[in-house]
């Protein structure tokens, strides 16, 4: 099984800052990291490969230093990496991004699964995965939490509008976008970092190699342009529970659970890794 994972390097930010005079995030000089949900997609891919032999390929479009995100993905266990980098790709919106990624995927040996994060932590549109599927003319499921292999079909689970859905996909390839998975992404083994840099292959493709024209990619190929930002007014809805404490605790738990803030099956984090209650 060949699994392709699309990842994005996003800046590590305590407080997001905008570039002076432009509606875009200040990224210069900031440390990069793999976007949170992309990391979950990668973890899901690695687990699938462990369940059934195959290959995990990581793909990113970004500036040259996005290589770091790919190297980290290789150290986590991906088999090879592809960096799409070209000055022409700069300023891409989600359409230009998915056009570029789709073209790269067409030029790779066809994958069985294409996994993405449901949305990035630095822009959060949630559009790239579904647009990628449309461009490639294949099905997709968004907001996936779990993937199970069943013979030649796959089962995916997700929670939408507070319903847990199970979907069977009979036709591959397909695009899946991940929101959260039951297992936290694995830690990076230090002794795999050498392989990630010196052994595992990383290719770099530019505009020419992709065979796209400059007006299909980057700012030129974008259908949208951000013309303003505004912080939404914060709303606070406080509720004071004055019942007996046991009932109140029950209610708080239910309220948190109904907003999916609790994972009732044992926590997003592995219990074994948390200190015992004292």
């Amino acid at each position, binding site marked *: 099984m060949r699994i392709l994972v699309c990842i994005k390097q996003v800046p590590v930010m305590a407080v997001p800052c905008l570039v002076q005079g432009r509606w875009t995030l200040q990224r210069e000089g900031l440390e990069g990291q793999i976007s949170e949900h992309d990391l979950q997609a990668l973890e899901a891919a690695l687990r699938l490969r462990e369940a059934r032999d195959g290959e995990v390929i990581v793909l990113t479009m970004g500036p040259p230093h996005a290589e770091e995100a790919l190297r980290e993905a290789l150290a986590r266990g991906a088999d090879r990496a592809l960096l799409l980098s070209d000055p022409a790709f700069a300023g891409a919106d989600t359409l230009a991004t998915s056009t570029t990624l789709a073209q790269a995927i067409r030029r790779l040996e066809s994958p069985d699964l294409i996994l993405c994060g449901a949305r990035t932590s630095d822009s959060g549109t949630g559009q790239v995965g579904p647009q990628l599927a449309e461009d490639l003319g294949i099905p997709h499921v968004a907001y996936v939490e779990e993937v199970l292999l069943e013979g030649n079909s796959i089962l995916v689970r997700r929670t939408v509008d507070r319903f847990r859905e199970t979907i069977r996909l009979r036709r591959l390839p397909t695009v899946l976008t991940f929101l959260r998975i039951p297992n936290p992404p694995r*830690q*990076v083994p*230090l002794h795999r970092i050498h392989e990630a840099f010196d052994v595992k292959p990383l290719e770099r493709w530019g505009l020419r190699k992709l065979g796209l024209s400059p007006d299909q990619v980057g700012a030129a190929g974008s259908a949208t342009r951000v013309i303003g930002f505004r912080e939404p007014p914060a709303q606070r809805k406080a509720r004071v529970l004055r019942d007996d404490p046991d009932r109140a605790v029950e209610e708080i738990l239910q309220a948190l659970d109904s907003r999916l803030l609790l994972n009732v099956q044992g926590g997003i984090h592995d219990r074994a890794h948390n*200190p015992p209650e004292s």
Partner: protein
Amino acid sequence: MELELSMRHRVVRKAARGFAQEVLAPWAEWIDREARFPEEILESMKPLGYFGLQIPARWEGAGLDTLASAIVVEELSKACPAVGLMVSVHNSVAVNPIWRFGTPQQRDRYLPCMARGDRIGAFCLTEPNAGSDTAAVQTRAELQGEHFIISGNKIFVTNGGEAGIALVIARTQLTSDQKEWSLLIVETDREGCLRGHQEDLVGMRGNPVCPLVFQECRVPRENLLGEPGRGLRIALEALDGGRVGIAAQALGIAQAALEASIQYAMERIQFERPIGHLQAIQAKVADMAVQVEAARLLTYKAARACDAGNGATQAAAMAKLFASATAVRAALEAVQIFGGYGYTRAYPVERYLRDAKATEIYEGTSEIQRLVISRKLLFGRKKRP
């Protein structure tokens, strides 16, 4: 000199930071309170390469350089200095000397099991009457036929309670009847090797520091590490790398104190504004940040000197001296910024202070570092005090 980290070093930092913050940090307070490591923490570190940082893949190590190791220790120590200490000592003064000075047989026998973390390493120099004065070591190793018979008391052995392999410095009479010392590899499960009670330390409480007592402990002759009679020299050389590790520990603690201070300064409201708006607090944060950055540059420079392989004694002593002082000062200021709350166990800053102090003492006190540095400047060579 290259001042920016390479991409490879940044990936190492990301790996260690991820482990330290996600897995280790939630345990730090518990480890300090209970004065022990939970088994699952050790187990989770083993497959991640923390116990074979620098040795090549051939012996199941991660093949990192000294700079990468320092970054790892810095990140671990930022979350839990007792674990940073364990990893630093295990790698820099137990595993690395076997790799650097060991025979091919010794490397094959000890490195893989140590790199996997199946055998934790310890380094035994200090004795009740030999601290800064390393030449006062009394422990003896007498060669009888094909065995050394070791007798003596080693104290303050970092990792002692967990250690499977100890490097022991003992007086020998192999090359002369004069004062000479040799280094021996001792499996701690040998008969005659006894562990004392864990020290009730002020800081670094999670680390099982304890005495190791040798009562006519028999060790095969082939366990001699390096040339006979050169043990003290090898040990002091290993301490260059060790001191970079201690500097990295101190750096991690100082960084933690700085970050805690910044966060608290913007949360705590007095006079209707976060105390971070008070100039006095701003000055503290600024001074801390400058010192931490300077400590980082010195530490990384010393690590690079170790990797370059042409003498790191001076750089390592400077890094350890400055970084440990920075950690103590930063932790002290953090307690001050936290006010009364900083003086309670409800916040981690008092722990940073207790942990930081140790870095000014072990692997050569600050006074000894100054001695090392000034000797070189004044007399142009290393001379023992």
